[in-house]
């Protein structure tokens, strides 16, 4: 089952990468990042079955950090939206030039 799990994980990860590159809505991009994290979690769990429970502990931490990151990130997006009335990444370009 390791190989199959790794396969799924890889595909999910690349889908996440694809989404990050393609979409311009900040929230959608954020969710793609979450997808990538999930794919990595799957990898860890698959390896945990073969190499020891440390993998699952790591997944635990990943989830925690992901939660924290989601909270803070969404707060940032809300603040951004208040200023620019948009979450379109192309318009969030004050640093440009």
């Amino acid at each position, binding site marked *: *089952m390791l*190989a199959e*799990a*790794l*396969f*799924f994980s*890889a*595909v*999910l990860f*690349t*889908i996440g*990468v*694809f*989404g990050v*590159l*393609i*979409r*311009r*809505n900040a*929230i*959608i991009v*954020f*969710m793609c990042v*979450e*997808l990538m994290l*999930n794919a990595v*979690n*799957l990898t860890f*769990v*698959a390896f*945990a*079955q*073969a*190499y*020891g*429970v*440390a993998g*699952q*502990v790591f*997944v*635990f*931490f990943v*989830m*925690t*950090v*992901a*939660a*924290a990151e*989601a*909270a*803070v990130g*969404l*707060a940032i*997006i*809300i*603040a951004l939206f*208040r*200023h620019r*009335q948009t979450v*379109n990444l192309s318009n969030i370009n004050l640093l440009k030039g």
Partner: protein
Amino acid sequence: MQSLSMPHGTLPLLYTFHFYLFGFIAIGSALLFVTRKSPVAAALWLVNTMFCLAALYVMLDAQFIGAIQVLVYAGAIMVVFLFVIMLLNLGQGEIHDARGTGWKLTAGAVAIAMLAQIFALTKAKTPINLTLPQGFAAKQVADAGAIAPVSGPLFHEYLLAFEVTSMLLLAAVVGAVVLGKQRGEEDAR
């Protein structure tokens, strides 16, 4: 559920079938997630993906993690996402916010390249002496329950990481509150 501690190579067909089923549903949901115009629809598809992943975790002898996946990821994080989407009232999206065709093709190429590279990596051989015997994880679960194998190392070897993570959470809470605060007069222009 039948015991999962099967000798290698003699997994029941049902198990394999379900594994593949959940896996491909996850992939399909992910694809749909990336291509939805509406953020709400996209979020919901992501939730579906996470459910499938939770199922996969359970089938991989990580039942605790599977439960946590549903509780934390699908139940808390995605809910927050949905709250924010609804709060910002994004609806259908201002315009179709994917980049043009050229970008899509290039991104596709990058993605496929990355996939190929990852596959190449998976072919790597791992040292024999690190590999656990077959069914070891299942045995652990059978012996001590689903939670104990995870929590044991968590509070013993990885205690420091645990404490640090709690501080991280604190920082995150404070940060989120501060960032989300209305600023009063200096607000939105």
